[in-house]
């Protein structure tokens, strides 16, 4: 592909300086997201998925967080070098983000319509309303009021777009009066109101019921088709990834360990961690077997293991894994893996693995 990616993250390193020590949350993370695609980022809790997203938004709480190095190119502009003011103009407009907890992510003291209208007022010029910056305070106030009214109408349209029935009523309701699914729809309406190029969805359905999850995902897909937004979906639900994503990145302890086209990764996972992850989902169709588990747990990122961070849990580990972090190498077109022994992993069969384990 010759065109430039929409978002290009290179060697991003984010640390958190806590009382217990420096948490090395992200260590040289690199990947691209292309225009209009759906990219899935998957991994266990605490592996750095959300930190990556928040680093891109630059919403890492600072202190204790600090982006140490790397670059985040969005449409060719390095976000890490831009001033806060530019970032404010980008957030909610070109890049927006949906959070995991619809219950707490909306401000309890403002109604839904006002919260959506706020983002429209911030980023859209609302050209239907004359907006000469007049010095007369009375006219100025009248114009402001007209803009607010127009933004509120647009907010109602946005609610209609996310298939909320009776959007006029919902716009005047407060978050505590809505269900979790409704709030997440309102959140999506808010974050898509300005037609962003990139929508970061950080576990958008984790807190919702299964039926509502499917509706929300369908809705996101539909809106993506209509608006051409790229979606960066963060989840630990493999089913959601398989369903939604064109490409997927697997993250482990602050590193991308495998990245590529979704089918390729699901068909031939080449990293031992990805393999374990895929084997740990129950399948209804197949004969019942004991689910495989990955032994051990996610390492403490204050004192992460040397070399490949997965080696203490890996059944393929060799001496080199303990000292040298493997680089991400292309094993086939659109499929990269960071593992010294990907070739052995590729050709190993289940029985052999038992022997190793």
């Amino acid at each position, binding site marked *: 592909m010759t065109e430039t990616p929409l978002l290009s993250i290179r060697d991003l390193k984010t640390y958190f300086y806590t009382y217990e020590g420096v948490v090395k949350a992200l260590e040289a993370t690199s990947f691209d997201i292309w225009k209009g695609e759906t990219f899935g980022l998957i991994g266990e809790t605490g592996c750095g998925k959300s930190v990556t997203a928040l680093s891109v*938004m630059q919403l890492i709480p600072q202190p204790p967080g600090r982006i140490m190095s790397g670059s985040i190119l969005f449409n060719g502009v390095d976000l890490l070098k831009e001033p806060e003011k530019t*970032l404010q103009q980008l957030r909610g407009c070109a890049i927006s983000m949906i959070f995991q907890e619809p219950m707490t*992510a909306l401000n*309890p003291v403002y109604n839904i319509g006002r919260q959506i209208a706020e*983002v429209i007022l*911030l980023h859209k010029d609302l050209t239907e309303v004359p907006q000469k910056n007049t010095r007369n305070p009375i006219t100025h106030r009248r114009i402001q009021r007209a803009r607010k009214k127009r933004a509120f109408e647009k907010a109602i349209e946005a609610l209609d777009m996310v298939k909320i029935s009776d959007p006029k009523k919902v716009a005047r309701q407060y978050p505590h009066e809505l269900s979790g699914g409704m709030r997440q729809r309102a959140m999506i309406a808010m*974050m898509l109101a300005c037609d962003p190029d990139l929508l970061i969805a950080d576990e958008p359905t984790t807190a919702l019921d299964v039926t509502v999850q499917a509706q929300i995902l369908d809705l996101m897909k539909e809106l993506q088709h209509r608006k051409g937004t790229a979606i960066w979906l963060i989840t630990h639900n493999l089913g959601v990834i398989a369903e939604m994503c064109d490409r997927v990145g697997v993250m482990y302890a602050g590193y991308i360990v495998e990245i590529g086209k979704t089918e390729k990764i699901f068909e031939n996972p080449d990293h031992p961690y990805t393999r374990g992850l895929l084997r740990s989902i129950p399948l209804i169709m197949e004969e019942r077997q004991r689910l495989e588990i990955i032994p051990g747990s996610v390492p403490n990122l204050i004192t992460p293991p040397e070399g490949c961070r997965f080696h203490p849990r890996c059944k393929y580990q060799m001496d080199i894994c303990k000292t040298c972090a493997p680089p991400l190498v292309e094993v086939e077109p659109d499929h990269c893996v960071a593992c010294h022994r990907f070739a052995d992993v590729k050709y190993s069969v289940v029985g052999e693995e038992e022997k190793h384990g």
Partner: protein
Amino acid sequence: MKTWEYIVRRLILLIPVIIGVTIITFTVSHVIPADPARAFAGGPKAQPEAIAHIRAELHLDEPLWKQYFFYLNDLIHLNLGKSYLENRPVLESLRDYFPATFELTMVAMLIAVPLGIIGGIISAIKQNKISDHFSRIIAIVGYSLPIFWLALMLQYLFAYLVPILPLEGRLSVGMVPPTTITGFYVIDSILTGNVATLSSSLLHLILPAFTLGFSTLAIILRMTRSSMLEVMSADYIRTARAKGVPERKVIYQHGLRNALIPTLTVIGLQFGALLSGAVLTETIFNWPGMGRFAANAVLGLDFNSVMGFTLIVAIIYVIANLIVDLLYAMVDPRVKLGGG
């Protein structure tokens, strides 16, 4: 429920509160081992006839429960009895002293609330910076300084060492108070256009109002700081930032409105506390208000005045809390008046 309906309901609830307060104050003031009749008749050397006369007049020779009903009966007719110290009806004394205390309290709150809230916000958003340490020191000092010491120090500094402010009273000595319209000297001076009394009354307010308001300032500051800190790490603040809202607006529109909810409670309670708790401040600054009146009444065994004062304070507390609850419903849409 409609707002007015709620207000009426809450005001009706005042009646049991008043009855409860009267039972307590009445019992307490009548079981302490002192003889008010003797005190009013002139102390140890009083004539027995005079004592008997006063005793009969105050129904002190009747059983306690009967005395209580006499008192309640008077209360219904808005008669709080007679103040023996001032030799006039208690209601009249309270009517004279209440505006002085109210004026002092209002000014104290006008100092404490804005400074406390602003200090709390700055402290929270500059957490662990110099301005935060500074406001926290102010808060601890305000918490722990005894009022009488603070009052005396302020008098010593600003009325004696650097005499820029008056020592005590509501007006300069020899100045005629403005015509009574509201009883608040500042407002009356403005209404009558009297610049001299206006400036004098304002100058006289500064030291006592600051003394009275300082601890409240400290409490509001700490409350605002801690709730602001909590709110600013909430998910919806992150959402606001993700929307591209400028940081100023994040703090003042999204943060402050949520952080003010607990602060409001404190303000309401403090308002009641200041109105009733001005005893020390008023005594030291010789401020002719209810607090000084109550202190004198307690020392002089003037039970009618003590009970009248307590009653007024109870009513003020109930009304202040009612106002806070109404404000609550305005600020926080999750609060429904009378729900539950």
